[in-house]
């Protein structure tokens, strides 16, 4: 099912046999994922299947119960604080809600990583911040506070912040969820543009099929903690698995059932009229 490529792809992030449990619940069960350098890879699946958990594992916020998580050749769970610190500076992350610091202005939010991790002089920081804001089209909004931004604008500022330190990789956690079509279009365009112009590697976690398929170079479909299928969007669209077809076309019922397990309908109704 995986595509044949002529040359061996340069894999930036590698997950092998990753297992993660929360209490008794198995969230990830022996997952294998390759994120290729310079490409946009999407991880898709129904809500609650642990997509965000994958991002957290890559970022070292969580440690797997079993398996390998490797970023740029480094074994993430084994890194000490300094190593993790250094690695995180090379990763940018955009959270679902933007996660801008509410007490700082747009400018200050984007400048934050620069101020914390570099000793650059103030005028250089100013230039860098303006450049990043220009890339997402919000240079004019630099004095606004996060509470004054629309959802779409807040996410774009979050993107600018994520690229502030010129990372090698950006992770997007549900970037399209709940946005109007125009904003979705803008964000899609930005993700593609940033990825190509800045030579980034992008990892998107989403369940918005249409939007994501349009810009992905490669897709992973996960369900119940396992990878159900993966490939580039065309290949997946022709997949033989009925589950994949259901997901991709957004059907309400199919292999992933509509009804939550329940006793027989007629019996359930009649049970209420016991006399």
């Amino acid at each position, binding site marked *: 099912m995986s595509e044949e490529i002529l040359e061996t792809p340069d894999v930036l992030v590698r997950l092998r046999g990753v297992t993660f449990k929360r209490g008794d619940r198995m969230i990830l069960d022996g997952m294998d994922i390759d994120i290729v350098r310079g490409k946009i890879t999407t991880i898709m699946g129904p809500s609650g299947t642990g997509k965000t958990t994958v991002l957290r594992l890559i*970022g070292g*916020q969580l440690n797997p119960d079993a398996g390998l998580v490797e970023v740029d050749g480094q074994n993430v769970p084994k890194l000490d604080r300094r190593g*993790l*610190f*250094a690695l*995180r*500076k090379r*990763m940018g*992350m955009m*959270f*679902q*809600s*933007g*996660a*801008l*610091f*509410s007490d700082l202005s747009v400018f200050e939010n984007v400048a*934050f*990583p620069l101020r*914390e*991790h570099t000793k650059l002089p103030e005028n250089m920081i100013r230039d860098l911040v303006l450049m990043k804001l220009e890339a997402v089209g919000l240079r004019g909004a630099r004095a606004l506070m996060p509470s004054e931004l629309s959802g779409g604008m807040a996410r774009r500022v979050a993107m600018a912040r994520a690229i502030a330190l010129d990372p090698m990789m950006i992770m997007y956690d549900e970037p399209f969820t709940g946005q109007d079509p125009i904003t979705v279009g803008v964000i899609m365009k930005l993700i593609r543009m940033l990825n190509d112009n800045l030579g980034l590697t992008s990892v998107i976690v989403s369940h918005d099929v249409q939007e994501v398929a349009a810009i992905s170079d490669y897709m992973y479909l996960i369900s119940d903690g396992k990878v159900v299928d993966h490939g580039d969007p065309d290949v997946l669209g022709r997949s033989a698995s009925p589950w994949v077809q259901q997901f991709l076309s957004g059907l309400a019922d199919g292999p992933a059932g509509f009804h939550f397990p329940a006793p027989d309908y007629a019996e359930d109704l009649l049970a209420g009229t016991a006399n």
Partner: protein
Amino acid sequence: MLEWLRRIGARALLFFERLGRALLFLLRVVAVLPQLVGEFRLCITQIYSVGVLSMQLIAISGLTVGMVLGLQGYNTLVDFGAEQSLGQAVALSLVRELGPVLTALLFAGRAGSALTAEIGLMRVTEQLPAMEMMAVDPFRRVFAPRFLAGVVSMPLLAAMFSALGIIGGSMIGVGLLGIDSGAFWSQMQAKVDIYDDILNGVIKSVVFGVVATWIAVFEGFDASPTTEGVSRATTRTVVHTAFAVLGLDFVLTALMFGGL
């Protein structure tokens, strides 16, 4: 019967588990405090939102409590012909007890709950994980400055409360009820000891400051990242601080003044 015991045991275990988390949290905050030397600006901003913005409430409360003490104290003392001792009655009540305790309770209601809500909201909007992913330690940048601000502000606020209370008491006693000003102040000065009373009162307010701020910041940190979770956390801050302050007050009073 057994079920009842089991439930009590479960609740006790939950309590200790939470207390343990809170203690570990406090240790981490304290460990990071030395790094705050470089974050001067941040601390100043926090002292502003915690201390300065509470000043109005504390000042007015202190003044009115002092005035009430003046009135009530006079009513009681006049029966013994001891109304000239009003000054020392007002001063001792404020400096030893009411200043530190009432300031701590008001602080918890105003500044403490605001801290909890702010931090809880940061948790809901994922600002804390975002900070971690940017390789910035939220303990250094968020929790420790707020903790320091509370510990610094509380003794200052308590002193203001007591001072204004005494002034309020003197306004009523000397101004309104006709007690001799000289007697009011000189009796007070004779009876209020700098070590036993003033210093102990300051120590109390520092202890309360640590406890109240610790609870406020921890509850925000520990809140579930939902609106309901934040709302419950702010309630917990006020309630737990009240219990803790009143309980500690008893212990400290027994230690400090019990011997007398």
